[in-house]
């Protein structure tokens, strides 16, 4: 029988610390395992590595026979995970959050499953409430619902009962049986009574090493406490012994899933769900477009104050100011679409979602494009008014839309890249602005052609440069995006 999950010599280094070291074990389908250990023993790191959120420094992880590193879409589709950061959007309602997960995981009978889960987790009366309005315990229930919704074959929960009330805790085993009964289930906890109630087996970690792997005496928390203490102290009876582990030397492709199992229509719906989610969040929070639009107008004002422009040069300067304001909006906004995910802790949800990395890039770049196009049109009107230049023309609007696409293609790539880097606010302008300058140069030159400052025909090669730049960066980013999000 192929295990639901396996670790082989799994070692993860976090900065200068070895968080887990040389872990080898299997989790069988339907097996419930408690992951125990003191704070800092490596429980969360192990769960994150099995989920595919963390690349092993040494060793491998497998889910249903497929190697988790460079995870296939199909592999990610089999994992349900709930960590310390809830994978929910604060400004979406409970049902919208669940519908998003159903769309990205391509869940069959999504509406029925959402109804059942919200009913079983007593969330049905909160369906129209935004996640930010829920109590900590209700948010924990929503996080459980999100992990269970895809009908996972491997369920990984990090302290799932931490904020739950007594009644929900008591029903947790029953709920998991109902929604992921055949899944391998690994959960980290410090509550040994609950561990004894839920699990048949325990893995004990101590300073990153697996020191205990034994059967749990059902319902006997006191006995489990003694066993864990014995394992940590290294008493031979309880120390981790090598079990018979599945042989992965056989052809992995034969046991793995191979293909994503998603049709083109499924992929299109996944992307539409991501784009729709971002637009809905923007509509509700009004976080990005108004701020960027205001920034672009401020740029126009600053430029007009900074330079004394002779009357005959005004059209040329207006074109430059228009594109410079858009370039600066790209630098700020390009980072925002990914930084917002990172700040909310929902970036993990995107990484775990069974969406092709190229598709994810396309969705985020599309959102960036829509935001920048809106800001660009706003800039166009403000430059037209403040510089008294007839910019409100179809050809200039077309160039701005093309330029917004080019800026979005490069901005989304660098925004994703820098989202997880320290001091990203300082770094992103340094990285993004130089690469974006060809768009600025091309956009200004093409606009000068449109305005008749240079020959009208000269705008076409520059528009071509914008289109080529957009295509090159979009293609490059689609190929490289899986590397940005890690293995």
């Amino acid at each position, binding site marked *: 029988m192929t295990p639901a999950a396996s670790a082989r010599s799994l070692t993860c280094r976090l900065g200068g610390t070895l968080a887990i070291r040389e872990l080898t074990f299997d989790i069988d389908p339907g097996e419930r395992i408690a992951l125990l250990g003191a704070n800092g023993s490596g429980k969360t790191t192990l769960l994150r590595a099995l989920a595919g959120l963390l690349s092993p420094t040494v060793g491998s992880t497998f889910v249903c026979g497929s190697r988790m590193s460079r995870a296939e879409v199909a592999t990610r589709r089999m994992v349900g995970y709930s960590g310390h950061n809830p994978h929910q959007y604060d400004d979406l309602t409970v049902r919208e959050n669940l519908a998003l997960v159903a769309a990205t995981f391509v869940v069959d009978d999504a509406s029925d499953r959402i109804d059942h889960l919200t009913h079983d987790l007593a969330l049905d009366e909160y369906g129209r409430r935004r996640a930010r309005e829920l109590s900590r315990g209700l948010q924990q229930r929503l996080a459980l619902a999100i992990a269970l919704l895809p009908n996972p074959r491997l369920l990984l929960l990090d302290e799932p009962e931490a904020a739950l009330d007594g009644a929900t805790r008591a029903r947790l085993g029953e709920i998991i049986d109902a929604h992921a009964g055949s899944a391998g289930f690994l959960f980290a906890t410090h509550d040994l009574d609950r561990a004894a109630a839920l699990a048949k087996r325990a893995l004990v970690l101590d300073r990153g090493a697996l020191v205990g792997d034994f059967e749990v005496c059902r319902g006997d928390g006191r006995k489990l406490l003694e066993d864990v203490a014995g394992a940590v102290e290294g008493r031979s009876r309880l120390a981790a012994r090598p079990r018979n582990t599945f042989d992965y030397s056989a052809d992995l492709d034969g046991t793995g899933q191979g293909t994503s199992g998603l049709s083109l229509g499924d992929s299109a719906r996944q992307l539409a769900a991501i784009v729709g989610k971002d637009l809905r969040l923007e509509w509700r929070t009004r976080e990005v477009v108004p701020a960027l639009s205001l920034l672009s107008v401020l740029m126009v004002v600053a430029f007009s104050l900074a330079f004394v422009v002779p009357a005959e040069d005004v059209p040329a300067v207006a074109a430059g100011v228009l594109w410079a304001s858009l370039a600066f909006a790209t630098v700020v906004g390009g980072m925002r679409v990914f930084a917002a995910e990172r700040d909310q802790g929902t970036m993990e949800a995107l990484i775990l979602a069974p969406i092709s990395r190229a598709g994810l890039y396309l969705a985020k770049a599309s959102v960036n494009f829509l935001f920048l196009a809106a800001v660009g049109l706003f800039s166009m009107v403000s430059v037209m008014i403040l510089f008294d230049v007839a910019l409100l023309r179809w050809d200039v609007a077309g160039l701005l839309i093309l330029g917004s696409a080019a800026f979005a293609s490069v901005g989304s790539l660098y925004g994703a890249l820098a989202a997880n880097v*320290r001091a990203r606010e300082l770094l992103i302008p340094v*990285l993004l602005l130089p*690469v974006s300058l*060809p768009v600025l*140069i091309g956009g200004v030159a093409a606009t000068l052609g449109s305005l008749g400052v240079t020959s009208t025909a000269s705008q076409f*090669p520059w528009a071509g440069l914008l289109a080529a*730049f957009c295509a090159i960066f979009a293609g490059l980013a689609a190929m*490289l995006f899986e590397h940005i999000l890690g293995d």
Partner: protein
Amino acid sequence: MLAGGSRSIWGLTAATFIAMSAAIYMIFMYAPMERVQGNIQRLFYAHMSMAWIAYLSFFMVFVGGAIYLARRSAKWDRIARSAATIGVVFTTLVLITGCLWGTRVWGACWTWDARLTTTLILWFIYVGYLMLRGYIQEPQSRRRLAAIVGIAGFVVVPINFLSVYWWRTLHPAPTVLRADGPTLPPPMLATLLVTVFAFTLLYVLLMRHQMALERLIDEVDDMQFQLLLTERKL
């Protein structure tokens, strides 16, 4: 093995020294003085050779990054980051020599000419590449993200090369790589080829030294990792 490697370094150093000496001799003694610009034109040989090294370096950053992402071999990351360091140094020298030359010929150290501007953009891109590496502590993430920046940044290199064709510029058009053949007089062409060859040898030598240095840095990092493993086992 060490002796062989040492011998080859010494051989390469000697060859670079001889080639550089020959190049310097040819620049100042063999190549004729350009009638309009005078002796300042002799900067051209070093200026163009250094620009060639910068292009070569950035190409190596691109190749190193692409192969690193495909194979995840630290060696290719070392090649990429060594090349980036050398590329930034030589781009800086290109900008400085261009400035010296421009001051005499154009009467200005800097002009917003297409070639100059795109060269400055390239300098910013690869300084950013080196900065990024300093901002990421985890080695694998650092290598991965730097590789992506190295690959994406290379998109501007062809724009820089083609800028003299796309824009009307003050910067001279290519005199060697032309469809209708080189336009330089033979003594100047010979001097240029020898100088380019000498700088290419210098580049190979610098790459070897820089890579050896980078290998030591990686080895220290690996030793720290092994130490962590050992400490945990004790």
